[in-house]
């Protein structure tokens, strides 16, 4: 499996990468960790004429906390998130999700930004980013703009990053240890057939529940969330709320799971994720 021939350019700064992208337009693809792009190129599903390698832009490779917000550089690898002491303390949902992605080798190379921009409907990150109300800071030829997680995941393999733009940072709030991610994984790949991230605020009696793998894009289970608004999260109230985790959704169907089974898994995993989050807090 050999990709089609291409020209390779390594950008040493974000501005250089944006200039290269402007110059080459639709012929170019951005390479970060390469763990979505290279498999697609080997299958020749993707045949860019120019590959712009941004992996060595040091500014985008960091995890920093400032005023209760955490900025994660788009080039931060899954393993760096999994092993980050700052995140284990300030936002433990992210290391938990990172540790469930693929395998050690994939986590060493794949990046959080690349995975989010790729917007695989079975990716793990969209569930976490939606549940945390993450904000995506995107650089373009005319400066930066920020997109909320709810607007970032647009459709199957489509994020809000437009041609000519590059994701810079993902901003998430620091959360206490009241979140959890549970996944029913496709055994061979580890991708989510149904993955649910839950964040519970016991004081405000509010929950955020996001589901990936079930529909063409990850979504917030709004029925489940409103069912628990202002309600004490008990085993009973969680079970009732979780029944709504696939309401109004058009589930995917493939050789791994039928639409009905996926909807069922969304409900079961929502219950488990909420209960796990409540038990931790």
């Amino acid at each position, binding site marked *: *499996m*050999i*990709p*089609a*021939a*291409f*020209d*390779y350019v*390594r950008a040493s700064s974000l501005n250089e990468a944006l200039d290269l992208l402007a110059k080459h337009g639709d012929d170019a693809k951005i*390479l970060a960790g*390469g*763990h979505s792009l*290279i*498999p697609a*190129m*080997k299958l020749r599903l993707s045949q860019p004429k120019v*590959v712009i*390698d941004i*992996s060595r832009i040091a500014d985008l490779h960091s995890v920093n906390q400032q005023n209760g917000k955490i900025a994660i550089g788009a080039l931060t690898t899954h*393993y760096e998130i999994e092993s980050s002491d700052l995140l284990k303390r300030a936002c433990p949902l992210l290391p938990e999700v990172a540790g469930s992605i*693929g*395998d*050690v*080798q*994939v986590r*060493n*190379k794949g990046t959080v930004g690349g995975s989010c921009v790729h917007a695989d409907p079975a990716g793990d990150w969209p569930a976490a980013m939606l549940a945390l109300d993450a904000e995506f800071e995107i650089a373009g030829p005319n400066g930066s703009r920020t997109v909320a997680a709810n607007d970032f995941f647009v459709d199957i393999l489509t994020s809000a990053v437009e041609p000519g733009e590059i994701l810079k940072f993902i901003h998430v709030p620091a959360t206490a240890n009241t979140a959890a991610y549970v996944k029913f994984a496709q055994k*061979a*790949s*580890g991708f989510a057939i149904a993955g649910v991230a839950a964040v519970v605020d016991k004081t405000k009696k509010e929950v955020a529940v996001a589901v990936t793998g079930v529909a063409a894009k990850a979504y917030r289970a709004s029925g489940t969330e409103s069912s628990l608004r202002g309600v004490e999260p008990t085993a009973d109230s969680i079970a009732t709320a979780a029944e709504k985790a696939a309401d109004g959704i058009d589930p995917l169907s493939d050789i791994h799971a039928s639409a009905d089974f996926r909807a069922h898994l969304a409900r079961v995993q929502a219950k488990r994720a909420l209960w796990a989050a409540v038990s931790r807090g």
Partner: protein
Amino acid sequence: MNISVKISVNGVLHEAEVEPRLLLAHFLRETCGLTGTHVGCETSVCGACTVLVDGQAVKSCTMFAVQADGTEVTTVEGLASNGEMHPVQEGFWECHGLQCGYCTPGMMMTAVQLLERNEAPSRDDIRHALDGNLCRCTGYTHIIDAVEYAAKKGRA
């Protein structure tokens, strides 16, 4: 357009003009002549092609050689030193950690990564760490024994 790369493999600097689409696995096997790195599934699943790039275990079938420019790569050929087997190699030898041997170089490189990050892994830790490496002979139990042996040996 070919790109000039300098990659240190097992401590030896290799300079070459490569096509950007040349995968690191093929660079190691064909340009460097180091055929210990095996190519199995070619789809980032089986882990037979695992090598360390700047100390990180990666699947060399899912990385272009140009991405490894300026890095230090360790392959299975780089594990032994001065004729002495690496503890992980000794573990595979002592515990019959292989049958056909195809997955073995990748298994060993991932095991080396594990033991660098966790010098006293449980059997569960070992299983979890090796979940990106497939053994089609299904000899997993002995592979776990081998890594456990290496961990004990490394701490001795």
